[in-house]
Structure formats: C-alpha cells, structure tokens
C-alpha cells in the first residue's frame, strides 16, 4: 500500500501489535472517561433542564436524548464492525478481529436501549408499549443481526475461524441493512419522519438539537471506552500462551 504515508503505516503496524495496543488502551481510557463524563453531563443538563418543553408532547419527548443517539450508535457500530471485518479478512489483522467481536455486545446494548426507550417514548404518544412502526421494527431486526454475530462467534470453538466467520457475517449484514431498512419502511410508515438528518436543515429547534448532538458524541466516547476495555480482555483471552501476557500477569501478581 504505497499510497499510505510511512508514519501512518508505521503507526498501524505498531498499534496492531497486541502488547502495544494493550498499553495504549490503558493510557487512553482514563482520558476518554473524563471527556465522556463531561459531554454526558453537558448533554443531559442541556436536554433535561435547559431545553424547552415541547408544545405537542410536553416533557415526555426528552427521552429522545437517549433514544436517538442510541439508535444512531446501533447503526454506527454495525457499520464499524463491517469495516473491521473487511480489514480483518483482507489484511489478517488480529486487532481488527478483536475490535469487531468486542464491539458486537456494545452495539447490541445500544440497540436494546434504543428499542426500550423507543417503546417508553411510544407509550405516552400512542398509548401502547409497542407499535410496529418502521424505525422500531428495523431496530429490532438489527438487534437480531447483532445477536447472530455474537452467537456465531460463541459457537465456533477455534477463535481464529470464528473471527473469520463473524467478519463475513458482518459484511453480509451491513449490505442487508439498507435493504431491510427500506423494505420495512415501505411496509409501514407510522413513525414520524426523521427529524435530524445530515443533509437538510434539522426541523427541531437548535436548543433541542445541541444537547442531542452532545449526547451523540458522548455515546461515541462511551463506545470507545467500552470497546477498548472489551478488546483488552479479548486479547488476553486469545493470547494467553504468549510472552507478553505471561509477563503482564506476573507483573500484576
């Protein structure tokens, strides 16, 4: 890959070495945690306290400050998983494999949160705990896609083969997500039209938008913290017989 500048490729080579990555993660996590807490605090304060009451829905709309960022994260993480799957398959990078499988439960968690908060949001609005509207249904199917990745990885004993399998599955899944999304949308359009989109001007007021975006960024930092922690653990599990793990355990003892 001659078009990648040398310092960048050297960084990738170094970072993808498990002991180096492990040490790097250890150094970063405290900082990321601080940033996360600050962003979370700001977002929640802005969303729960500062933002005005919605004239239609009253205060019950405020759950979007959890629901919408969680839904965004659920999609974002799956796409990221697919990218890592591609990297793992093409360049056989163990770190990509580890990051992929570490991300899956986190993504599933966000999907679950999106579903629960969506249901909670729906109760005051539609009177029922669940409606088969397009977005919630797509999220539900996405949850199954995540569960499939987690189950497949757990079912294959040899972890190297398991990593290849979930890489393939993640890539297949990511191709299907737009198809599933549009087919479900065609099937049912109850949900209110998307109120925040990258392209057009958001149709919600900026005082409601800013906390939303703050929460979205905060969740991304949460993801980073969680995936680094999980990746560290997975690396230890996969490299138990290697020198650096033994040295690490001896140091801690």
């Amino acid at each position, binding site marked *: 890959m001659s078009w990648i500048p040398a310092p960048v490729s050297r960084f990738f080579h170094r970072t993808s070495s498990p002991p180096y990555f492990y040490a790097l993660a250890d150094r970063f996590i405290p900082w990321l945690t601080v940033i996360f807490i600050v962003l979370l605090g700001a977002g929640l304060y802005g969303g729960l306290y500062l933002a005005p009451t919605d004239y239609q829905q009253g205060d019950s709309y405020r759950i979007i400050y959890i629901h919408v960022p969680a839904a965004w994260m659920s999609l974002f993480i799956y796409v990221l998983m697919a990218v890592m799957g591609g990297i793992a*398959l093409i360049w056989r990078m163990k770190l990509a494999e580890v990051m992929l499988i570490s991300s899956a439960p986190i993504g599933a968690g966000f999907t679950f949160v999106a579903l629960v908060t969506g249901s909670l949001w729906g109760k005051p609005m539609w009177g029922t705990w669940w409606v088969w509207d397009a977005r919630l249904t797509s999220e539900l*199917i996405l949850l*199954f*896609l995540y*569960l*499939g990745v987690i*189950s*497949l990885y757990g*079912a*294959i004993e*040899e972890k*190297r*083969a398991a990593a*290849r*399998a979930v890489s*393939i*599955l993640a*890539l*297949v*899944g990511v*191709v*299907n997500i737009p*198809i*599933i999304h549009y*087919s*479900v949308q*065609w*099937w049912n359009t109850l949900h209110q039209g998307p109120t925040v989109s990258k392209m057009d001007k958001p149709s919600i007021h900026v005082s409601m938008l800013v906390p939303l975006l703050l929460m979205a960024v905060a969740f991304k930092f949460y993801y980073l913290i969680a995936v680094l922690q999980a990746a560290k653990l997975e690396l230890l599990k996969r490299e138990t017989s290697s020198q650096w793990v033994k040295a690490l355990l001896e140091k801690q003892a």
Partner: protein
Amino acid sequence: MPIIGAFWAIIRRDLLLAFRRRAEMANPLFFFVLVVTLFPLAVGAQPNLLRTMAPGVIWVSALLAALLSLDGLFRSDFDDGSLEQMLLSPHALSILVLGKIIAHWLVTGLPLLLVAPLLAVFLGLPEQAMGTLWLTLILATPLLSLIGAIGVALTVGLRRGGMLLSLLVLPLYVPVLIFASGAVDRAASGLPVDAQLNILLAMLLSALVLVPLPTAAALKMSVN
C-alpha cells in the same frame, strides 16, 4: 475439464443424489402444507380472516420450509469429505457453490410451486392473486436458497447449527418476505404489483452475483 463443465457436473451430481434419496425430497412439501394447515386451526376458520391472512401465512410457511431444507445443502458433502475435494479443485469454489445452490433450489424450492394452488384453496386466496403467488414463488424461492446458503456455509461445521442458522438467516429473509407477501396481498386486492416483482427480481439478480463469494469464503472457514 473447464469450469463450465465442472459447473454442470456438480448440478447433475446433486440432482442425481436428490433422486437417489427421493423419499426425502417430499419432506419440505409436507412441511409447507402442514404449517399452513396449522393457522386455520390456531386462529379459527372464518373465511374472511383466512383470506386476509393468506398471503402472509403462505409466505411465512414457505420461508420456514426453505429454512428447514437448507441444512441439506452442504451437510452431506461436509460429512463425507466431498466438500474438501471441492475446495481442492483448481476450479473456483464460487462457481461450484453456485451450481450446488441451483441444484438445491430445483429440488427444494421449485416443488413448492406445485403445492401453492392447494394452499391458495385452503386459505381462500382470491383467484386473481394466484398468478402473482406463482411469480413471487419463482422469484423469491431461489433468493431464499441463495441467502440461506451463506448461513449454511457459516454453520455447517457446527454440531448443532440448526437454531443458529435460523437466527442468522431469518433477519436476512425479512425483505424477501415483505415484498413477496406484500405483492400477493396487493394482487388479492386487484392492485398492480410491478414494483414489488421488479424489486424481487433485482434482489435475485444481485444475490446471484453477490452470494457465491462470501459463501465460498465461509465454507473455507468451516472446513478449517
């Protein structure tokens, strides 16, 4: 022998094998009819209710029948070492896999069309929807075999892969289900179905091109 010869050879072989095991061939059909029969028993036999549900019930049952028959796609070859021989062939595994999927569909998917009229009668599906039912079956059953093949390839090495296979494959089946049963539903009301059929055709053509490669990769992983 050139690759196209190998392609036909594998289709011929699989059809021959299915014929030698022809007692098993009827199983997906029986399952299809049986599952459809369960619905009137479960929800009551009111004609209006059944007629409204007919497209969905027929299509969910077809989906489940397809799912059940998927395991046979690679199981036998995996167990007796034939799959390894295919991996060792100088010919591209993707092409061989595509041949196997086509043969599998001919044996498990195509027969469902024969049974469709019976099920339409059971559930009171309007006559005007019959043609669409056949069209959706002919377009979507190969699609089910293709999409399912990826799931089978990923799980063939596992001892109890059946439930996991369903978990992997059913979410991917959702778009097919939506458009196929949606089309039949619209046809039952006399509405045009061109859009749905075209989408199914597009999905089928894409799957023909896109499925063999990840399936071959998954098989290589499973044979590990």
